[in-house]
C-alpha cells in the first residue's frame, strides 16, 4: 500500500511529445481512474508508473520513493494490460501463479491463492487450459487473476473490462470494488467507459492530448465540470451544447443562441454580450406543458427511460425522461430546462464561467 505521486511528467517518443507535464496525487488506498479519449496518453502514463516506459522528464514516486530509475520488478506493482499479455506457453494456473513462483513461495500457498482467485473470477474449470484455448473475456479474467493473487503496493489496470460482455462487466466491476474495499490497495485504473469511472472511482483524472483537464471526485466532475471538454466527456448521454451569447431581458440574465432561441441562464458570472457555450445535461430537461416548444426528431425508448432528440428553434437538443411518451417524430413537445443545472462556458477558452 502506498501513495503515488506524478510530478510534471513528460513523455517524448523521439521528437513527438505525447504527455505534456502531468501532475496527479494519489493517496494511499485511493481508487483513481484515468479517463480520456483514445490516444490521449492514458496507457502511456500507466506504463510509466509501472516502469515499462522511460520517463522523459518529471518524477514519479511510489510510497514516498522516487522510482524513475527503479526497474519494474522492484516497484512491487501488479498490472493488467489492455491486451492481456498472458504467457502463451503456460496454462491458466501457471499464468496466475507465476509471480508467486518467482518469489519462491511454497507450492501449497500458490495453489491456494490461485484457486481462490479462480473462484472469484469464475475460472475454476479453466485452470488447465492454455491462453489460446480461451475467449477474449476469459483471457481478460486470467489477467485480472494474475494481479489479484499478488499483494502489491499498487494495482495498475489498463481497461481490464473492455472485452467482457455487459453482464460480466457489471459483475467484475462489483468484484473489483469489493477487492479494493477488502484490500485497501491503491488502484490506478484506465478506462474509456465512463460508467466504470463514475461508479468505481474515488477520484477521476480526465485527460486529453497528454494533458490533465480536470481531477476530482466523480460527482464533483459531473456537477462542476471545469470546461467544455470535461462537461462533454463525463455523463452519458453527453451534455447538450448550444452556442450563443449572454443578454439580459427585464433585468434578468438570459441566453440567446446563435439561431435565436432564448433560454434561461440565471445566476451566471458572465457579462452581457459575452460569447458563450450553453450546456445542459439531457437528464436535466423535463417535458412539461409550460415548457419551451420543440419538435421531436427521434425517440429512443429503452424501457426504463426515453431519450428524446428534438429541435429547439434551430438547435438540436436531447432530453431523457422517465415517462413513456406518446408523441411521434415531427410533433411538438414542451421542454423545461432546469435553470439551476445550466452550465455556461466561455466560447473561446472553453472554461467554465
Amino acid at each position, binding site marked *: 500500500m502506498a501513495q503515488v505521486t506524478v510530478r510534471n511528467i513528460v513523455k517524448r517518443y523521439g521528437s513527438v511529445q505525447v504527455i505534456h507535464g502531468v501532475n496527479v496525487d494519489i493517496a494511499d488506498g485511493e481508487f483513481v481512474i484515468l479517463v480520456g479519449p483514445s490516444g490521449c496518453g492514458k496507457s502511456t502514463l500507466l506504463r510509466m508508473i509501472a516502469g*515499462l516506459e522511460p520517463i522523459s522528464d518529471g518524477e514519479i514516486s511510489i510510497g514516498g520513493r522516487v522510482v524513475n530509475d527503479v526497474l519494474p520488478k522492484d516497484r512491487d506493482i501488479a498490472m493488467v494490460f489492455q491486451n492481456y499479455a498472458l504467457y502463451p506457453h503456460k496454462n491458466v494456473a501457471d499464468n496466475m501463479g507465476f509471480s508467486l513462483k518467482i518469489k519462491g513461495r511454497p507450492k501449497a500457498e500458490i495453489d491456494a491463492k490461485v484457486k481462490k482467485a479462480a473462484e472469484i473470477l469464475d475460472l475454476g474449470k479453466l485452470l488447465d487450459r492454455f491462453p489460446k484455448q480461451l475467449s477474449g473475456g476469459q483471457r481478460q479474467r486470467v489477467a485480472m487473476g494474475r494481479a489479484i493473487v499478488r499483494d502489491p503496493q499498487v494495482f495498475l489496470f489498463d481497461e481490464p473490462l473492455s472485452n467482457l460482455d455487459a453482464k460480466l462487466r457489471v459483475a467484475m466491476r462489483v468484484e473489483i470494488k469489493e477487492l479494493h474495499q477488502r484490500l485497501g490497495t491503491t488502484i490506478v485504473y484506465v478506462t474509456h467507459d465512463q460508467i466504470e469511472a463514475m461508479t468505481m472511482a474515488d477520484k477521476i483524472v480526465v485527460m486529453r492530448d497528454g494533458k490533465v483537464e480536470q481531477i476530482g471526485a466523480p460527482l464533483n466532475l459531473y456537477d462542476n465540470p471545469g470546461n467544455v471538454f470535461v462537461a462533454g466527456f463525463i455523463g452519458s448521454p453527453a451534455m447538450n451544447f448550444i452556442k450563443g451569447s449572454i443578454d439580459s431581458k427585464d433585468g434578468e440574465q438570459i441566453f440567446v443562441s446563435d439561431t435565436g432561441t432564448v433560454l434561461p441562464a440565471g445566476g451566471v458570472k458572465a457579462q452581457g454580450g459575452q460569447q458563450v457555450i450553453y450546456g445542459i445535461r439531457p437528464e436535466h430537461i423535463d417535458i412539461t406543458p409550460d415548457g419551451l416548444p420543440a419538435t421531436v426528431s427521434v425517440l429512443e425508448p429503452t424501457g426504463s427511460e426515453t431519450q428524446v432528440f428534438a429541435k429547439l428553434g434551430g438547435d438540436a437538443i436531447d432530453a431523457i425522461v422517465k415517462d413513456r411518451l406518446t408523441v411521434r417524430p415531427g410533433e411538438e413537445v414542451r421542454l423545461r430546462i432546469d435553470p439551476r443545472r445550466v452550465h455556461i462556458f466561455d466560447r473561446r477558452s472553453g472554461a467554465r464561467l
Partner: protein
Amino acid sequence: MLAPTIAILGIFGIVPFLYVLYVAFHQWNPFGANPYMIYNGAGNFRRLVFDSEFLTSIAFTLKFAFFAVFSEVILGYLLAQLFMREFPGRAFFRTIHTLPLIVAPIVVGSVWRLMTTPSIGIIPYLLKSWFGYDLNIGRDATMAFALTVIMDIWHWTPLVTLTLLAALVSLPKEPFEQAQIDGANRWQIFWHVTLPMIRPAILATVFIRLMDALRTVDEVWMLTGGGPGAATRYLGLHIWKIVFPKTDYGYGSATSIIVLYLTLVMCWLLYVALVARRGQRRTP
C-alpha cells in the same frame, strides 16, 4: 498436380535409395578380383558390426556433432540477442555475419586448411608467436578434432543466429513486460518466458544442424583429410573412403544404410524426448 511431384520424388529419391539398398546386399568391387555383383545376404551388415574403424568413426562423429551443434546453438542465441539490441552498425553486422553461409563447404575447408597449415598458415604462426604453442593438425589429433569443430561453428553459427533472430523478432513483447511486472529477473525471464517461446525454433535448428553435422564430408576432407590417423574420419568421410578410393561399393552402401538408420533413430529419440512428451502434456 501431385503426379509430377511423385514422379520426380520417385526418380530422384526413391529409386536411388532402393538401388543403394539393393547394392548393400551384394559384394561388389568392380576393380577388385571379382568385378561382378555377388549376392551376399546380410554379410556386409555383419561385417559392419565388427568393423572397429566404423565404430570409432561413429563415436568421433557423435562427439563432433555434439560439440559443434551445442556450441552453435549457444553462440547463435547470444548473437541473435545481440542483434536484437540497438547499436551503431547493427544492420551492417547483421549482414556480414551471414557471409560464411554463402561460402561453399569445399572452399571453407580449403581456406581453413590454408590458415592452419604449419609454417604457412596464419593461425599456427600467431599461436607460436603469441603463446609459443606449436599447432600441427597433421600430428595432433585433439587439435585436429577441435579445429573441425571450430570450422563447423564458424561456418554454421550464422544459420542458427538467423533462425533464432527470426524467432525472437516475432515474439510478442507483452509477456516480457508482464514478466518484469511479475518480478522476474533477466535470468528468470530467459528461463520461464523466452526459452519456452522460442523452443520450436531452437528444436528445428538443432535438428537441421544435427543432421547436417552427422553427414559432413567436404569441409573436413579438405581440412584434415580425416586424419591424423582416423581422428577426424567422420561417417560421411568414412563412407566416401570405402566407396571411392577402395571402390568397395557393396560395403559402402551397407554403411550408408546403417548411418541413415542411426541418424533417423537419433532424431526420433530426440524428438520423443523433447517434443512429443511435452505435446502430450498439453492436451488435457
